């Protein structure tokens, strides 16, 4: 206190005392507590917001950028691609993606991923926005109400799926020997309304049929039942018929990129809707689709010795104008001994198309035997196959079975396969043959000999005529003298008149005589008595 620089403390005023209200712990400690709480909260939300990490295998890393490429579901970002690297034997590009929190509910073993980039295929132009923003990865659920099991590893699709999970509808399977111009995404028409599309297609394992998966959107899937026919509606179907030219197309779109149409024949029957994945046949055109279905067609053989020009595989076989089958194949056969050339035509017949209800037979009946009896009967009644011209314009031929009462009897040989059915020359051919025969006969006439005979006869006739002329002139003279004789003033005429008068007098006296004799028949004996008169 004895500081020389300072005034005495007694000279200084006293500071006013403040009441002691201090606690040992300062209120400032709230600050670090708040900071810690904030930090902890941020840390917790960060950890909570950590979504699952998934891996996706791509065929190519084209358009994928680590840290940039987003994963979107319905256009909403649900994740980001973290890294892109070649994987395994470097056939694959494996992308590792960090998903947003809560995206576990998208990630199942049937979830599909694909890269969205600008794509122009057929009628679809998609992903144009990615021209500016760059590609992104889209995802969609698998279909079905129940989700599959959780999955963290996925394989990306080659192209966007045609059918999205949230579009209700049903898948069906079509079988066709030929894909035609079909492609994924090709539209499906029902009464010319676009109701679905081709989802995928693949070749059957045996390499013989194409399996086309189609998706029919609800509510049109209810019109598909067991009786529904599907046909390829690609392109334009132009047909010329008795009623004129008709052009059938589904839509301009189907003309350009193809399409499939279906229709259910209205036969009045109420049928159950077809279940998902029901298998149908895909026909080439509408006519083929609505042709009565072949039940168990049988193969037969016809042998034609005349030209089969205009007959082709697929040509119809008709029975009294009803289609009952088609030509399967044409061969050529030469008999080495006789050098006879013939064309065996293999046909497929479906007798049941005649309306012969073989199926109505009691169970256990031998259908083959019944069919055999039917065929035998038909043949014995003179049913024969004949080649006929179906169209004079195109020269296309078809095979007609018709009844020929004058056909020679034939017995079918059921032991050989295929069974050979008797044929008749075609109507046109028969006409041709008879005309040929007539021409042949005409050809055989001895026209030269006849000509010379006729010439001789004419010379003879000439001579005869000269003689006849002399006779005629003498006859003329005779006639002239006769004429003269008969002139009114001629002596002959006067004599004749006198003679006739004499004859008339003679006739009168005869009459008198006969009258006398009638009255006096006794005068024949006694003579005439003058007095009695």
């Amino acid at each position: 206190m004895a500081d020389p620089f300072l005034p005495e403390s007694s000279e200084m005023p006293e500071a006013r005392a403040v009441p002691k209200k201090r606690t040992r712990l300062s209120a400032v400690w709230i600050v670090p507590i708040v900071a810690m709480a904030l930090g902890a909260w941020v840390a917790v939300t960060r950890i909570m917001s950590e979504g699952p990490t998934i891996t996706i295998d791509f065929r190519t890393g084209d358009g994928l950028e680590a840290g940039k490429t987003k994963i979107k579901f319905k256009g909403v970002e649900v994740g980001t691609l973290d890294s892109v690297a070649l994987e395994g034997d470097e056939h694959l590009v494996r992308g590792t993606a960090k998903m947003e929190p809560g995206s576990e509910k998208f990630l199942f073993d049937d979830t599909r991923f694909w890269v969205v980039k600008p794509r122009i295929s057929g009628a679809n132009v998609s992903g144009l926005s990615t021209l500016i923003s760059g590609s992104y990865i889209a995802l969609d659920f698998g279909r079905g109400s129940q989700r599959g099991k959780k999955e963290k590893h996925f394989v990306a699709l080659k192209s966007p799926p045609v059918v999205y999970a949230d579009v209700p509808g049903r898948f069906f399977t079509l079988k066709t020997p030929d894909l035609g111009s079909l492609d994924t995404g090709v539209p499906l028409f029902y009464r010319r309304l676009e109701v679905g599309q081709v989802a995928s297609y693949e070749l059957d394992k045996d390499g013989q049929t194409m399996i086309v998966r189609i998706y029919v959107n609800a509510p049109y899937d209810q019109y598909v039942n067991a009786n529904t026919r599907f046909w390829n509606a690609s392109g334009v179907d132009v047909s010329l018929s008795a009623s004129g030219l008709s052009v059938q197309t589904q839509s301009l779109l189907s003309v350009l990129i193809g399409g499939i149409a279906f229709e259910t024949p209205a036969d009045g029957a109420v049928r159950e809707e077809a279940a998902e994945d029901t298998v149908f046949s895909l026909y080439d055109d509408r006519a083929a689709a609505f042709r009565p279905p072949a039940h168990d067609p049988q193969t037969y053989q016809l042998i034609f010795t005349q030209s089969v020009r205009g007959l082709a595989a697929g040509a119809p076989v008709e029975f009294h104008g009803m289609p009952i089958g088609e030509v399967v194949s044409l061969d050529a056969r030469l008999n080495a001994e006789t050098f006879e050339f013939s064309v065996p035509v293999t046909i497929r017949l479906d007798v049941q198309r005649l309306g012969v209800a073989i199926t109505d037979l009691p169970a256990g009946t031998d259908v083959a035997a019944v069919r055999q009896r039917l065929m035998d009967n038909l043949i014995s009644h003179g049913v024969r196959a004949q080649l006929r011209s179906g169209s004079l314009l195109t020269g296309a031929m078809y095979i007609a079975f018709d009844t020929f009462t004058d056909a020679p009897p034939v017995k079918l040989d059921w032991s050989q396969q295929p069974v050979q059915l008797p044929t008749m020359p075609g109507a046109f051919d028969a006409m041709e043959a008879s005309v040929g025969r007539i021409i042949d006969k005409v050809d055989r006439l001895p026209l030269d000999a006849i000509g010379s005979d006729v010439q001789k006869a004419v010379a003879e006739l000439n001579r005869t005529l000269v003689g006849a002329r002399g006779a005629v002139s003498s006859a003329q003279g005779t006639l002239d003298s006769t004429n003269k004789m008969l002139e009114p003033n001629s002596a002959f005429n006067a004599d004749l008149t006198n003679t006739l008068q004499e004859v008339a007098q003679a006739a009168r006296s005869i009459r008198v005589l006969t009258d006398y004799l009638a009255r006096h028949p006794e005068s024949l004996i006694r003579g005439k008595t003058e007095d009695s008169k």
Partner: protein
Amino acid sequence: MNVAGTSAMAHGLHSCEGCGLLSRAPGGAAEGRCPRCGAHVEFRKRDSLQRTIAFLIAAAVCYIPANVLPVMTTTTATGTETDTILQGVVLLWSPTGWPLSLIVLFASIMIPSAKILALVFLVISVRRGSVENNEQRTRLYRIVDLIGRWSMVDVFVAAFTAALVQLQPLMSVGPAPGVFFFSAVVVLTMLAVESFDPRLIWDSSNPRGL
């Protein structure tokens, strides 16, 4: 330059910071009111060490999210991107841009951490009653105080770009949570500096100190 002398506290005197009046502490109480102007008078800043430590802890806690969380969100046509401070440093690092990168590194990462470490050192040394290097420690405190206000550079950058770059359909920049923690670090360290009473450094060497 060890100047011998005494302090107001050693004489039981308060110096008013409002009017400069010296007054006696009644009964040796640590604080009171100036009899002339009524301002608060005290020997040393109240609870200086405790408050400094509290602010330092809060700053240290906030320092972690400030560096881990993104400070800026950039939305362009290609998508949204977020950047942390360190990513910004890495991004700026290029043959021509490295000075800028270094500035960001110093201003945003090294200075805040250095401030925290320096204050921790000062607090500990005072607590232990160290009497050595008092002048250096005081100088350190002055540097920390001086430098503090400049570490808001990053916050300013974020605020300016967010305000300027708003080309809506093409590009926009917005602040991200990290920037709030970063400014909290800066503010808290400034508060810690403010709470620390450099006179405490010298009190231990004063034989008549409290």
